[in-house]
């Protein structure tokens, strides 16, 4: 089936070449990072995790979001989603690949990565994160590939896949819960030490993942003969609507807890993000933009007239994807580290090489996503065309 | 006919590349490395362990030393002859073998081994900084 990814028109190869350029630039910048050290980034002694880990966290959510097509179809027999489960699984594969790559580019000694497997440490959440992420990747590859191949050959998929599919559903929830547990169990970081962090991660994941999936479906309908279906897109949009409402609600709960209790240590992180602290306020416009974007996203997806208009829905999805990316990516990480445990503000701004490498990883992810979607769509065109 | 010519050409090129070490050196092997001992090393006559053992196992021994010093806070190594050594690469090994370029590097370069120990462990403890 891989050969289907190699048969494409000018637009397909044009898009892939465009992505390859960014991958190439990112790779060259990474070689520089390997040579010089992580000092080429904007990271500091106070903010030791930044843009790479932020994107990693966001993408774990997008990967988990794929479960939102699998769950209704396999657990609740929502037949309509049968057409698009493969798209969710392939989105998960490319997202997890990006996650793993972001971790690798963030490591100070990447050649020692196997130490995590040679010296397993069950008390470390990072150890479990490695296991569940790689497990989810393998699960989706096995499930997606076999189900698609069965569809291509006009037979039902093998029965041993069923338990794996059922396993992938709670596993999807687990990858994002474990990633949240990286943050919410650290005693020195008050901004992250909240029970609602894992639920918030999941709610923003279930908004961002399906939003991206809707955008992909709309593009697929445009560039191929396969139509994912109006009903399918509308169901996804309703899932996004609920998820983004819950995400903003959770956020407002956090704000209430911090500001009604008036505990300085809890308030300080929110203050830094939304109004600035000690003269530093680089994140303020971003955080407010993110909040406004998410509110606009809520309105557009909740109100039926705007949701049913697929053009407006596309805008809503972009707006929600951006809003959740800023909120979970930039805001959560920078907010957690600033002010530092010694109550100092040392502002973190990602450097240009850092952004370049991150773009390279995103481009690689989209490269894999496009190739996988090309295969899936070609199979669908073959069998239904 | 066309394919046959291409295939034969390909196989010939492949053989040329794969057999490069043999025909380039015209059947002779590269000279084995000769290591030089410092006067201090010559006077000591025996290293921490026997020469054959050190030649084959010095990296494994260093790993054992590393884990003992770092993880168990034990720093004294008593070799089978009863002699005591402080388990330190820079302060014990390089105390006698202070000529890294004429000793360690000779074999390492020959075997194309590039240990990165020297990124941290001082490689010239005798020289003034």
């Amino acid at each position: 089936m891989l050969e289907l990814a190699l048969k494409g028109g000018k637009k397909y190869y044009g898009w892939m070449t465009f992505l390859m350029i960014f991958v190439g630039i990112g790779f060259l910048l990474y070689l520089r990072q390997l040579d010089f050290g992580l000092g080429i980034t904007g990271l500091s002694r106070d903010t030791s995790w930044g843009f790479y880990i932020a994107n990693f966290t966001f993408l774990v959510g997008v990967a988990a979001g794929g479960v939102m097509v699998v769950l209704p179809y396999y657990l609740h027999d929502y037949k309509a989603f049968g057409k698009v489960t493969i798209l969710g699984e392939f989105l998960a594969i490319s997202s997890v690949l990006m996650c793993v790559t972001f971790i690798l580019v963030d490591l100070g000694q990447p050649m020692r990565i196997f130490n995590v497997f040679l010296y397993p440490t069950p008390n470390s959440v990072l150890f479990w994160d490695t296991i569940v992420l790689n497990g989810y990747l393998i699960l989706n590859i096995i499930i997606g590939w076999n189900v698609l191949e069965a569809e291509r050959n006009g037979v039902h998929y093998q029965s041993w896949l069923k338990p794996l599919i059922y396993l992938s559903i709670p596993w999807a929830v687990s990858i994002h819960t474990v990633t949240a547990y990286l943050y919410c169990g650290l005693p020195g970081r008050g901004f992250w030490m909240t029970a609602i962090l894992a639920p918030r991660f999941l709610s923003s994941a279930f908004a961002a993942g399906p939003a991206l999936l809707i955008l992909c479906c709309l593009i697929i309908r445009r560039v191929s003969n396969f139509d994912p279906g109006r009903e399918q897109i509308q169901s996804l949009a309703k899932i996004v609507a609920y998820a983004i409402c819950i995400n903003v609600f959770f956020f407002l709960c956090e704000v209430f807890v911090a500001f009604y209790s008036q505990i300085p240590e809890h308030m300080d992180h929110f203050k830094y993000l939304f109004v600035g602290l000690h003269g530093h306020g680089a994140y303020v416009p971003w955080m407010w933009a993110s909040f406004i974007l998410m509110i606009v996203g809520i309105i557009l997806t909740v109100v039926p007239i705007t949701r049913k208009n697929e053009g407006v829905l596309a805008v809503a999805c972009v707006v929600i994807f951006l809003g959740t990316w800023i909120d979970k990516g930039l805001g959560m990480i920078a907010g957690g580290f600033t002010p530092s445990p010694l109550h100092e503000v040392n502002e973190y701004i990602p450097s240009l090489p850092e952004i370049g490498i991150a773009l390279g990883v995103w481009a690689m992810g989209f490269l894999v996503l496009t190739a996988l979607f090309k295969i899936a769509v070609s199979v669908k065109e073959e069998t239904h065309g | 006919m066309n394919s046959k010519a291409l295939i034969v050409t390909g196989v010939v090129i492949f053989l040329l590349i794969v057999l490069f070490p043999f025909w380039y050196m015209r059947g002779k092997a590269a000279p084995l490395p000769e290591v030089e001992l410092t006067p201090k090393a010559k006077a000591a006559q025996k290293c921490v362990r026997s020469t054959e053992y050190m030649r084959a196992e010095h990296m494994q021994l260093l790993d054992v030393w590393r884990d003992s010093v770092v993880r168990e806070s034990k720093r004294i190594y008593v070799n089978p002859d009863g002699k005591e050594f402080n388990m330190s690469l820079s302060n014990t090994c390089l105390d006698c073998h202070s000529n890294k370029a004429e000793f360690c590097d000779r074999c390492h370069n020959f075997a194309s081994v590039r240990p990165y120990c020297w990124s941290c462990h001082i490689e010239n403890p005798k020289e003034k900084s």
Partner: protein
Amino acid sequence: MDSSRRRILQLLGISALAATTKPVLNAFAKEEQAAGAEAVIKAGAKSLKARQWAMVIDTHKFESEADVEPLIEACHKIHNVPKLQNKNHEIKWLWGTHFHNAFPGKAARFLAEEVEHRPFLVLCNHCENPPCVRACPTKATFKRESDGIVFMDFHRCIGCRFCMAACPFGARSFNYRDPRPFIAETNKQFPTRMKGVVEKCNFCAERLAVGQIPACVEVSKGALAFGDLYDPASKVRELIRAHFTIRRKQILGTEPSVYYIV
């Protein structure tokens, strides 16, 4: 056709297995020899021992930056701690800071001027319940059973910086670049570190192993005391009994081993 290809692959597989078995078994046999059935590993005769090393800092003895500088110099010099210009990349094992930075949340109001400006020494607290050890995915950071020091194995560290996120005291530094160009005078007795690993105070484990107290304590002219927290007769226990002491962020339950007489 299929079966002959399958046959070839089977033959190749078995040959590969046969060819590699002996060398693999040999390699395993060698590993046992390395430890040396006859060699013995032990601690030095002069090494100082404790169940949990602890430190007591008498903050009254430090009135200005000039008082803490010799201690910081002593520590950073013998441990080859680099001096980097870029504040983002700085490495510090021991440093002085203001009261409300060392003890955020404990800031008393209407303090005397001189207390506002007094330097408070901060370093790794070698906690008894360290969150950094809990976080490390490779056990590169671990708590030594023998003496309670939270130690770093630089050979194993993958540079993930999870320990830095986990530390509630900001005690850890990361090597964002090669530190060697920034070490003014290398102490040849002690290694440097390389880029990409995390480092912090090690309670001078290499000095304790040869019967010496930590460098900062030695230079402190009595302002710092060092001893076994679980030895009722030790200097640290004596001071904790005699004076009121506080520890940083006690409420988090990490049980820091550095006590401050305030």
